[in-house]
């Protein structure tokens, strides 16, 4: 049992969890508003879109790659879908919106997958390039601009409460829309795929040692290809969620999110070098950043300070985990790990 606990604390997740709790208590003491139904609901609702993006980024990082194209990819597929449905004056269920967007996302993800998986090109550069292309298609070919009206189905899906919480103190009601269930479902599905399918284990195996993964019989190229398709699909679903929740489609306001998402995932203990990290850590890290961004008002700090705090959290967070890694001999200088090996044997 003690061994288990020790093992647990060697990973990042419990620390992030502790930080979240401590920060929550601090905010609670300062404002008395943190552990209230409506605040929690607000935070969860703010987690939906970044959370979905984070799951996609998590996959890419685990396999030893990276994806900086998902905001452009999501913007393009969400915009194209919304525009298409508006032009057809579609008034039906939101399901169709998801189906179309996810299909577009799969195609766009396949472009990434083709270059990264089959041609084995540097993932960072490829997604940088495709990101540029997706933006170009959206703003050039589709001449995207803000859509103030969105189809009725999407509109109602975005505001129908799944849970709503009323706060008697400030008289505010917060709503957690049904999109939250999408986050939960994708999370559960990914957990299952990563843990219980050969494909999912292949993603970890490739991130750990791509040559051995090939020797062990995994289809390395195909696995990466399919994985980037999945990332595209998840990102597009996230894009539609965003449009539904904002009640309008703004083609560019998701752009630039990629770096904070990557920071959140890495804060949660997912290694930039691939292979290591858990879905739990990924969600906790993302939640921490959301929490800092959203708690400014509660603490009476002007929202203009939000970036300063997020920046501080990233810098301090990654510095601590880098420090920890160095002092555990993981990923540090070879001689240190050699020394460790010798000490053990």
């Amino acid at each position, binding site marked *: 049992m003690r061994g288990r606990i020790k093992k647990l604390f060697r990973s990042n997740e419990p620390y992030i969890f502790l930080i979240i709790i401590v920060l929550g208590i601090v905010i609670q003491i300062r404002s008395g508003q943190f552990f209230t139904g409506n605040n929690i609901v607000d935070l969860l609702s703010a987690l939906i879109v970044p959370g979905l993006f984070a799951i996609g980024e998590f996959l890419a990082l685990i396999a030893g790659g990276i994806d900086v194209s998902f905001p452009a990819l999501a913007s393009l597929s969400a915009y194209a879908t919304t525009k298409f449905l508006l032009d057809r004056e579609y008034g039906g269920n939101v399901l169709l919106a998801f189906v179309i967007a996810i299909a577009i996302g799969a195609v766009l993800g396949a472009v990434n997958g083709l270059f990264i998986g089959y041609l084995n090109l540097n993932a960072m550069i490829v997604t940088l390039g495709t990101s540029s292309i997706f933006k170009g298609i959206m703003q050039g070919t589709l001449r995207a601009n803000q859509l103030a009206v969105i189809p009725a189905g999407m509109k109602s899906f975005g505001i129908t409460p799944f849970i709503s919480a009323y706060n008697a103190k400030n008289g505010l009601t917060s709503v957690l829309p049904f999109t939250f269930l999408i986050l939960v479902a994708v999370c559960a599905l990914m957990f299952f795929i990563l*843990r*219980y*399918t*050969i*494909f*999912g*284990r*292949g993603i*970890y*195996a490739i*991130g*750990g*040692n791509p*040559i*051995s*993964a090939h*020797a*062990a*019989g*995994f289809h390395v190229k195909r696995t990466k290809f399919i994985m980037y398709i999945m990332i595209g699909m998840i990102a597009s679903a996230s894009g539609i969620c965003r449009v539904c929740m904002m009640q309008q489609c703004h083609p560019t306001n998701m752009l630039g999110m990629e770096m904070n998402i990557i920071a959140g995932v890495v804060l949660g203990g997912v290694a930039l070098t*691939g*292979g*290591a990290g858990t879905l739990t850590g990924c969600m906790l890290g993302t939640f921490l950043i959301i929490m800092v961004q959203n708690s400014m008002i509660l603490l009476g700090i002007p929202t203009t300070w939000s970036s300063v705090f997020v920046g501080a959290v990233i810098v301090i967070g990654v510095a601590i985990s880098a420090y920890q890694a160095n002092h555990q001999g*993981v990923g540090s200088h*070879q*001689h240190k790990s*050699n*020394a460790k*090996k*010798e*000490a*053990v*044997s």
Partner: protein
Amino acid sequence: MAQSLLKAEHVKISFGSVHALRDVSLEIAPGEIHCLAGENGCGKSTIIKIISGVYQRDGGTIEFDGKKLDRITPIDSINMGIQVIYQDFSLFPNLTVAENLALNTEVASGKKLVSWKNVRKIAEDAVSKINFDVDLDARVSTLTVAQKQMVAISRALMFNARLIIMDEPTTALTRKEVDALFEIILKLKAQGIAILFISHKLNEVFEISDRFTIFRNGEMVATGLTSELDDRKFTYYMTGREFADQTFVPAKLSKEPVFELKDASLDGAFENINLALRGGEILGITGLLDSGRTQLGLSMFGIMQLTSGKILRNGKEVSITNPRDAIANKIGYVPEDRLSEGLFLQRSIGDNIIISEIDKLTNGIRYDLKKRDAEIARWVKELEIKTNNPENPATTLSGGNQQRIVLAKWLACDLDVLILNGPTVGVDIGSKHDIHAILQKLAGSGLGVIIISDDLPEIIQNCSRIVVIREGKLVAEYDTQNVTEQMILDSMM
């Protein structure tokens, strides 16, 4: 010999215009431990790749278990019972031991889902075959090298192996671990499994194998019973050259020590080490892999910092907290792992030579390229580095020539003390003798040299004095004029 398990005859293969194998034969009996030896580039790894189906041969015949094989694919090879354990073990550091053991089987089963119960069962079966006691839920990255190797062996045994090929399996093991490995090899032999053991370490070949085969330049030069082999023949077969043993005798020793350690300790590695090195002397430091000898070397060079104790140069205390301090005090260090610590492999030979003295090759703030080229030409000539263009990357050279670059880098800094950790690991025998000659010449010109090595013949031949370190303490000191390998071994263990 009874019916042979594997019989390869007159195998040829070429890549473009390079004849990697001209004509080699290799015959292994069932349940035999066979040692394949040869210098780097002799074709050892090529024949393994042909047997395991990675390469297709251009000519010759291969029989396995009496059946002639025309074309071997990797799957055929595995199905016949051939397993290769490469030097890097082909493991997944980020996954657990259990998963590393079971993954191949799970993938091969064609199932889409993972059954963790099944994974555990497969893993338990696999480790029980060699009584390997390990936490199946531990991540492989947290294991020692020896444990990783056991995982790789356990995995190989899962496929009803009949021939296990081990590519230099002892390189990173401590002596104790080597003994444990040999025990397992003997156990496998008893079960009728043949082992092809690739090594160029003489003592191991004698210790473990029944028969041997030696390759040189893509040709088979000798094969036979190990009992009929001796040192001299072995070296001759490997290199095609005869070497005279030239034991080192210091020509002129400085009166006072140039380098001293006083009560040097490093927590968790070594304690209270006292050493004195005189100019013109070659001092050997030996000990088991886990004795603290490497940390001692790193501390003398400032990569690690002493927790207590002093370092003295020419009798004066100096502070060495990083490699720059060491170089400023005219101390150089040739690291253990040439490939990951010693050389910028992809960069030019020239840049590798001048990097440590680069700050002297300036003219004002400008980099003096003429001085640079002159310096490079000087060292290429002095150390006889075999290259026609020093602007070629270091990868284009053989191990021996690469090691000369590392030596040149330090000699160019005009040192008083040179520390070498395993100076001839992975260097072929021919170059090894040349490097020894260079070191002896340097000591002759007044340099103080320290060789850290567990290659006992090497230090006995090249050092004037040997100290033995065991569990972090200096336990013995010998004059090489009257010492035997056994005496040193006794104090190491």
